[in-house]
């Protein structure tokens, strides 16, 4: 029996090791390739040049025009997902009949399971034409359509995790609030949402993380044209869309054009890394609070 336990233990340790090694490997590749890249391109240029044209003869390496595309589409997505996701979370935890929650939650989570390529085409072939009836000047590929659809995709992340956080608020606080003569609405917004705020913030950060890393929807519907703009009606290119573009193209391995994707990837990685750490930090504080 001892041996069996040893084998199981070893197996578990091995699985954990693989995960850690993969992460280290990814960071290593990103860093080493980026280092070579930054030998040719100064960090100052990378961070300040307003143009990103590594594939043209007149080369510019300003990440900002990709970063702005990422930030623009992600902001639109959050602007869509946050109010809807939070409303759903509050409705499910406070208003919906008991059984309702058990059915609706998994159904909502299906939204997150739809292949992103489907969302991409939905944005391109349904949402964009519809938006064109409202904004005739909208570009065929645009940040708005991709952002909205990405927002729909991340609704369940926000609604589900926020609902968990609201649900976890001790019943004694609900009693206290109702006992003071609060209405349901007051209980939800003055007691439960503040008490669950850390959990809700974590859900939002994870959703932002997800939006920043999303690739297929933006590659299909937002375009592939680096553009330092905050106008949602224009064509933009996100960091992820650029990486796909180069990976699928015929850029020779080992060239500086090829290495741009690692520098871009590193930027993305740093971004999501910081966000995940913030959420980790908030979650830890939150756990302390309810001991």
């Amino acid at each position, binding site marked *: 029996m001892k041996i069996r336990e040893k084998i199981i233990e070893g197996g578990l340790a091995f699985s954990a090791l693989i995960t850690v090694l993969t992460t280290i490997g990814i960071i290593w590749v990103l860093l080493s390739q980026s280092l070579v890249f930054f030998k040719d391109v100064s960090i100052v240029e990378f961070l300040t040049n307003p143009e990103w044209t590594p594939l043209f003869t007149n080369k510019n390496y300003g990440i900002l025009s990709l970063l702005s595309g990422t930030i623009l589409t992600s902001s639109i997505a959050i602007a869509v997902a946050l109010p809807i996701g939070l409303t759903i979370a509050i409705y499910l935890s406070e208003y919906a009949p008991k059984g309702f929650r058990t059915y609706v939650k998994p159904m909502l989570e299906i939204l997150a399971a739809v292949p992103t390529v489907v969302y991409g085409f939905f944005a391109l072939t349904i949402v964009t034409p519809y938006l064109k009836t409202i904004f005739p000047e909208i570009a065929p590929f645009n940040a708005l359509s991709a952002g909205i659809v990405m927002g729909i995709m991340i609704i369940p992340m926000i609604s589900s995790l926020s609902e968990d956080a609201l649900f976890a608020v001790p019943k004694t606080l609900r009693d206290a609030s109702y*006992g*003071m*003569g*609060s209405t349901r609405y*007051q209980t939800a917004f*003055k*007691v439960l949402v503040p008490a669950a705020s850390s959990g809700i913030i974590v859900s939002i950060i994870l959703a932002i993380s997800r939006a920043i890393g999303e690739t297929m929807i933006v590659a299909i519907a937002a375009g592939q044209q680096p553009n330092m703009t905050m106008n949602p009606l224009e064509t933009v290119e996100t960091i992820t869309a650029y990486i796909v573009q180069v990976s699928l193209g015929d850029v020779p391995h080992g060239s500086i054009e090829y290495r741009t994707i690692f520098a871009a990837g590193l930027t993305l990685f740093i971004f999501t890394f910081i966000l995940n750490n913030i959420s980790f930090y908030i979650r830890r504080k939150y756990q302390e609070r309810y001991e």
Partner: protein
Amino acid sequence: MENTSQKNINNEDQSMSQDTTEKSKVILESKKANVYYGDMHAIKNVNIKMRENSVTAFIGPSGCGKSTFLRTFNRMNDYIDIFRKEGEFYINGKEIYQKDVKVEELRKTVGMVFQKPNPFPKSIYENVAFGLRIQGIKNKSVLDEAVEKSLKQAAIWDEVKDNLKKSALALSGGQQQRICIARALAVEPKVLLMDEPASALDPISTAKIEELIYQLKENYTIVIVTHNMQQAGRVSDRTAFFYIGELIEFGKTKNIFTNPKEELTERYITGRFG
């Protein structure tokens, strides 16, 4: 749970106040009250009258329905799906389950303090101001005044007056419970329902809460559920003994404890069961 540090509240005082409460008006009343949880008959045909500025203790073995009955008076059972009631419940002569009664208004008249201290994860100030804020009161001086007054009434002002911005969760359990009492008092209810308010507290905090209850009855009508016989004896004017959903005996606390009419009551208070 024996609490020897508590000084004995003057018996003379108590009997005097009983004489005055005898004539004062009825604030809480139930007529043929029955409560069911699904098929379970939790309260059986209870008729009771509680008078203004009195303290009534509900005692009885665990599961006999004390909390259930207490909570019918601020309709906190309404949230339980399988809860059903029959009979009539009056606050100040008004039947509180009638359609035209707004539950929110009722609960401003009938405040509640729970077994486990349950302050909001907010500052001390915001906890006490909560009830006024949800009524839409924003005026700072009105809030300041109410917060100070309630904290003084709850005998905790001196301990927290310099730290009103501090989180209420950072206080001790006994202090938290007094914050909860202050929070309930801030909206100036007529009735205060207390469900084992001291059962989670140490003897010194318990003594403070008991003293507080004794002072509060000047202005409020109080109903307290307790498992502590000494406590019931010290703080209440009248005692109601419940047994498996029935009100077995209700009378002056002194009589219930020295000369109970029912054998069940006697067996319970002498600790021979439950």
